[in-house]
């Protein structure tokens, strides 16, 4: 059986923070156009692993392959350039700016250049933001609303729009459904399905196993900086939940012989 090259492959990723071993040799594969769920207890290393992929952290060891090619990701800009975008756990929005400014943050459109000074094309950015919001069926009255005053669900949506605004290939979402109302969670899940339908490859981190169950094709469980489970998402929700929880709390471990010191 010949498998297509995965869009992302991380091998033996290691990361320490001072004395804290956040990741001790994790492998991760993301196939093209799949949704991969990443779960684990608090401090398991989920965010750290994904921040390494998005260029926010530099790993202490390990390799990353993007579409089969070995790649160094040294900064968020590097990750962006190869089409990897991340929606951070704290959203990383500039609360003092409006919706359009946040969507285009760091990637503003220029109308002209005066030497080193680039003049923004505000109308283009606002129009484009409106189009992007419509594309993902997001309901925000004005692209000129200051982000500070929007609801949690709207802010989450803006962070997702920003991540997916520039034809990216891989979208990482760190707990996109945390602290949201049931209706807002529904919207985010619809959004993920919509993105998948549009060809995106997605990694989603969540503590809400029912959300993982609903959107993911496959899943990985991390525990104390190690991968303890990798499996397709199948079966009934209750069985799925019971099984995954066993891995999360450490009652079961598929890779017990590896990564132990």
């Amino acid at each position: 059986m010949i498998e297509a090259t995965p869009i992302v492959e991380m091998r033996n990723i290691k990361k320490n923070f001072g004395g804290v071993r956040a990741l001790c040799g994790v492998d991760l594969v993301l196939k093209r156009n799949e949704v991969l769920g990443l779960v684990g207890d608090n401090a398991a290393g989920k965010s750290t692993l994904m921040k390494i992929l998005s260029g926010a952290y530099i790993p202490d060891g390990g390799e990353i392959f993007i579409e089969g090619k070995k790649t160094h990701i040294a900064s968020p800009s590097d990750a962006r350039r190869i089409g990897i975008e991340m929606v951070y756990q704290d959203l990383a929005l500039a609360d003092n700016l409006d919706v359009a400014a946040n969507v285009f943050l760091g990637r503003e459109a220029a109308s002209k250049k005066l030497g080193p000074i680039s003049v923004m094309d505000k109308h283009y950015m606002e129009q484009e933001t409106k189009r992007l919001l419509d594309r993902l069926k997001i309901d925000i009255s004005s692209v000129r609303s200051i982000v500070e005053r929007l609801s949690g669900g709207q802010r989450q949506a803006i962070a997702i729009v920003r991540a997916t605004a520039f034809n990216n290939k891989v979208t990482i979402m760190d707990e996109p459904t945390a602290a949201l109302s049931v209706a807002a969670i529904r919207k985010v899940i619809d959004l993920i399905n919509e993105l998948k339908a549009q060809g995106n490859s997605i990694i989603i981190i969540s503590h809400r196993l029912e959300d993982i169950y609903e959107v993911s094709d496959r899943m990985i469980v991390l525990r104390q900086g190690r991968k303890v489970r990798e499996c397709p998402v199948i079966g009934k929700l209750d069985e799925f939940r019971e099984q995954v929880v066993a891995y999360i709390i450490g009652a079961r471990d598929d890779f017990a012989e590896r990564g132990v010191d």
Partner: protein
Amino acid sequence: MGTRRSGILFIKEAKEMLLNNIREFGMYIVLFVIIIIFTITTKGAFISSRNISNLLNQGGYIAVLAVGMTLVIIIRHIDLSVGYLSGFLGAVAAIAMVSWHLPVYIAIPLVLLFGAIAGLAPGFLVAKMGIPAFVATLAGWLGYRGALQLATMRTGTIIIPNAAFNAISNGYIPDIPGISILPGVHKLTLILGVLVILLFIINSIKDRRKTQSYNFKVLPVEMFILKLVFVSVVVGCIAWVLSGYRGLSWTAVIILGVILIYNFIMTQTFLGRHIYAVGGNPEAAELSGISVKKITYVVFSSMGMLAGLSGIMFASRLQSATTTAGQLFELDAIAAAFVGGASATGGVGKVTGSIIGAFVMMSLTNGMNLMGIDISYQYIVRAAVLAGAVIFDVATRNRKK
């Protein structure tokens, strides 16, 4: 029925606009009230053309500092060193012309360049070393104070004999010769005022059309017209008052230039957008590929350059460089920035606001001087206004949450 409903809608929208811009409007109202009060208490002396003209010339060097300080405050820092840096650079300008015999058109750009380079020092300490700006620039405050005393040690006050240089803060733009109507009125100033109003109206209409063509919401037409009329009346009044004395001073021209350039940068360019982003959420800015370090360097460097400009304006005003030049300028500039709507939590502040804030503080000093109020009470009144501005900021901020 229909008109009544649109009337209600109008009031609702007017209210919303007022609430959304309450800090800005608040400032204009405060300035307006101050002007009225002083005009009454000084029996019109405050609003006289001569006094307003003087007020601009006296306050210009604080106004330009306030603009730079607002940028620094937007990125969540502070710069205490700019007062004595301004004094020191004023002395450097004097020495450049008097001792080095440099022509004025070389001395001025040189001093501005020195200022921009000097600003890199706190930029380095803050951005690279992670030292709090308060401490880093306090070191600058001490250092530049010493440097200023060294520079003026041998000669004491350095007299500047250069007429062109001294015109910067004492001279006025020439008038068009040979027009006999309106004697005693500065015609060119009036004409410029009218031009500004026309440009503003044309630009506003153009922008409104463009926004409409993109199907974006614009101000309701009544509000739009109200805004045009209001701005036109204000600009017209200023031009009329100034033309009654000797017209537009060079200081006013410099302030206008600084406003135009900085306002353009802050509202229209990538750089301005990134400065606001760094102030709003530095981590988010960094994750978006914006270099917080680079922005910090640029903002402190611009502050240093404006300190140079301020030093030049002050030295020109006194026609000399003195040992105490620049004393407390930094505090006046910080106060002006906060009164002008900058927020201590960062990310918020406007160039136009800082200028208004500077004029509020200058008007207070000037008006109370005219009234003969003792300096000790003056400090207390200014303290109250500053505290009021900050309390207002916190109060309106919490309400929005």
